[in-house]
């Protein structure tokens, strides 16, 4: 946050007062900003469903959260890169492998951008993708189970910010490096001086292949590129579908005090990549194989478990070696472009120079012509730079301060967020005229229109994800909730409808009609299809098995008891694995499982699923276990005991449910 404030200061200082045409950082007249029928437009009556799912990145919480639109009600938190003690994600034996990386177990990340899968440029409601910014990763989340199904680490990458945006038919997800650095080649990060940046540091963009049936990802190939910072990106669509566009800053190639040193040049770049040609060259075997190490983690909801595999090879393509093929072109773009967004037709590419006084809009047709005419203004690190005037459709003049991101309504209008002047500005893509502006409270980052980045926006609302909350909600100490705001865009003028709090710190989000997702929602897992090696499919299979120091408890849960619920013969020094199978086959009946003093977590087991909690007893005694998810009127009765005896004791291993001592006989 501090960094951004400094950036603002820098921006104000550089751009001067000429741009202060819009409301300042803290808009006035907050009370009057909401008009009469806002409540009616966001009210979703009890028992009714929202019209859209809003899939929202969690920023520093490493998760995804899901909201209903227009109500703003939170529906779900999906753990992705971060451990989640409430349901055991990243703690259970089955899910730990999901967080494995080449650095070992990394149980957190910084998740910035959502990309929902598309077919022919339109939402298909199959998967959500999200990037891990810190330890470069992309995750794929099923929109049927609302679970993370796959996480792939990106080799030769640092700071996976320009990610995970998708090509038109979700052929590829993209991963572009925010930090250039000396590459991982052969697994050894070269030990070079940091100030040898210009000589040794490189950036990459990686194309992550997506299997059209299963969604399975693979690192298909990467381009090795000049050492700049790739910020954001979007694929083309329609006529530009074979291209991918990236915003680049720090073309100065500074390695220290970037807020000053990376803001020197009048123009940085939008980079255009012909990914189709790259793909052809790779298929023709023109890429170089490099030795790397990266983790590929896959969750299988038949085995109810994840596996992690370390991969060791990547195919790298250096576009400088294929100048004649025309793989990569740079286009000058005013001052440190952040957002790089393509309109629904694929004709226009909007670059948002966050320190710029204009929004440049590039024309795909003109880009093609400039390429054909070799209309270059020079070369950058061996790659051609197209002439600005030759590729420009036009500039939106004096739009506001600090433009960041642009979404589209499908009716010929673009909506750009302005961090510094804290507003959303609506403008006409063809004429480049500003037609409306509304204040946001406060300092908007990303914005989202349902279907806004696709070929077929659903329109209706624009949602602002604000960076500053200040006085919008009841204070909760130094840290406040994050603030999203929703505006009606169905008319000529944008109208503020709703504030709703969000968790983590959302960056980008997408919204999708519920009708594309809800019919496919999984209600439970069929017990017959459970292939977990430790499943107990019915109480007859409940048992306890000792394998040396390991004690495997095959346990079942159903409303409202565990089998077994009395276990004896566990000893100090043992590792106990509770493999709990939920025998329920109805919707919304998970069971929980928790052990007193467990240093691990609790687990939630969905109907038909098996989930494993590892427990290492720390003391001799009788330890209670119980269900943590209120399951029935007798939930408080859903409990049991494990007796832990000293190491070397001769208490035999035994287990039972419903066995009571015979009358008159003292139990041992």
């Amino acid at each position, binding site marked *: 946050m501090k960094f951004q404030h400094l950036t603002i200061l820098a921006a104000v200082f550089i751009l001067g007062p000429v741009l202060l045409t819009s409301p300042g950082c803290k808009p006035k007249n907050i009370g009057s900003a909401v008009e009469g029928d806002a409540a009616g437009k966001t009210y979703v009556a009890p028992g*009714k469903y929202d019209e859209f799912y809003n899939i929202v990145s969690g920023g520093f919480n490493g998760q995804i959260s899901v909201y209903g639109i227009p109500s703003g009600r939170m529906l779900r938190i999906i753990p992705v890169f971060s451990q989640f003690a409430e349901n055991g994600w990243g703690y259970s034996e089955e899910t730990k492998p999901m967080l494995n990386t080449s650095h070992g177990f990394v149980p957190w990340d910084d998740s910035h951008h959502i990309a929902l899968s598309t077919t022919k440029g339109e939402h298909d409601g199959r998967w959500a993708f999200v990037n891990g910014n810190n330890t470069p990763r992309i995750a794929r989340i099923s929109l049927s189970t609302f679970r993370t199904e796959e996480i792939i680490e990106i080799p030769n990458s640092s700071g996976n910010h320009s990610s995970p945006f998708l090509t038109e038919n979700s052929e590829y997800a993209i991963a572009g490096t925010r930090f250039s650095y000396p590459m991982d080649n052969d697994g050894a990060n070269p030990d070079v001086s940091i100030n040898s940046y210009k000589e040794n540091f490189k950036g990459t963009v990686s194309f992550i292949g997506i299997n059209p049936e299963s969604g399975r990802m693979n690192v298909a190939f990467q381009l090795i590129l000049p050492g700049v910072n790739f910020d954001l990106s979007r694929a083309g669509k329609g006529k530009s579908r074979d291209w991918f566009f990236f915003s680049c800053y720090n073309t100065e190639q500074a390695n220290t005090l970037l807020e000053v040193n990376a803001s020197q040049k009048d123009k940085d770049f939008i980079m255009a990549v012909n990914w189709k040609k790259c793909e052809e060259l790779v298929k023709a075997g023109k890429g170089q194989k490099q030795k790397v190490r990266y983790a590929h983690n896959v969750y299988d909801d038949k085995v109810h478990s994840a596996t992690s595999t370390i991969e060791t090879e990547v195919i790298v393509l250096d576009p400088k070696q294929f100048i004649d093929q025309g793989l990569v072109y740079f286009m000058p773009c005013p001052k440190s472009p952040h957002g790089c967004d393509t309109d629904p037709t694929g004709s226009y590419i909007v670059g948002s120079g966050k320190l710029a006084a204009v929004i440049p809009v590039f024309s795909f047709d003109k880009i093609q012509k400039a390429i054909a005419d070799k209309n270059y203004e020079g070369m950058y690190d061996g790659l051609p730079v197209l002439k600005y005037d030759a590729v420009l459709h036009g500039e939106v003049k004096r739009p506001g301060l600090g433009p960041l991101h642009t979404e589209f309504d499908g009716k010929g209008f673009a909506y750009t967020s302005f961090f510094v002047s804290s507003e959303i500005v609506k403008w006409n893509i063809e004429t480049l005229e500003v037609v409306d502006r509304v204040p946001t409270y406060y300092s908007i980052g990303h914005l989202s229109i349902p279907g806004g980045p696709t070929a077929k926006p659903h329109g209706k609302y624009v949602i602002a994800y604000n960076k500053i909350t200040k006085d919008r909600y009841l204070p909760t100490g130094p840290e406040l909730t994050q603030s999203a705001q929703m505006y009606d865009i169905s008319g000529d003028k944008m109208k503020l409808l709703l504030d709703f709090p969000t968790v983590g710190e959302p960056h980008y989000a997408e919204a999708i009609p519920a*009708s594309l997702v809800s*019919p496919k929602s999984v209600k439970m897992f069929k017990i017959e299809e459970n292939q977990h090696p430790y499943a107990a*499919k019915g109480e007859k299979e409940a048992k306890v098995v000792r394998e040396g120091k390991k004690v495997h408890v095959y346990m079942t849960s159903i*409303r409202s008891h565990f*089998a077994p619920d009395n276990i004896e013969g566990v000893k100090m020094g043992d590792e106990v694995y509770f493999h709990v199978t939920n025998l329920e086959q109805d919707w919304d009946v998970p069971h929980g499982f928790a052990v007193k003093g467990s240093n691990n977590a609790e687990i939630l087991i969905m109907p038909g699923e098996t989930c494993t909690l590892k427990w290492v007893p720390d003391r001799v005694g009788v330890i209670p276990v119980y269900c943590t998810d209120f399951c029935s009127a007798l939930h408080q009765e859903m409990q049991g005991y494990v007796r832990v005896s000293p190491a070397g004791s001769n208490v035999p291993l035994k287990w039972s449910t419903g066995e009571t001592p015979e009358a008159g006989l003292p139990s041992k």
Partner: protein
Amino acid sequence: MYAYRCLTLFVLMISLVHCTSKEDAEKAAKTSPSPVEAAEEQPEVHGTPVGAITLTNPLNKEWVAQGQAIYDTKCLACHKLDATRIVGPGWKDVTTRRKPEWVMNMITNVEMMLETDEEAQKLLEQCLVRMPNQNITQAEARSIYEFMRSNDGEK
């Protein structure tokens, strides 16, 4: 604890009373098409009433075996084969106490039974745990009934 249970039961009863009937749901679906319906239209084996069943003799051995396999996975945790009640009633003599369609509706259509059938409501008061939907088809429920007959000594 007792007061607490009563309260839970009360809440449960209220929610049952307020459940909309299938016709209501269908009517609502016709008048207001929305994504809501889509989720509700998911094929689910549960919820179709079972009509009168004609039993045949001797028992269908295949059904008995299939019924027992389902029992082991999905029923045994709550129902003993003798007369003792654990979570639900023991199955001994259930085929003389109940009609086959009553049993099959309890397995495949518990919502309707708890709403309309006095015997089912009484059982809920005794057991306090709703008979769960175990995602069993009518054909599977029929085989379970055959297994119950076998358990009751029919040949």
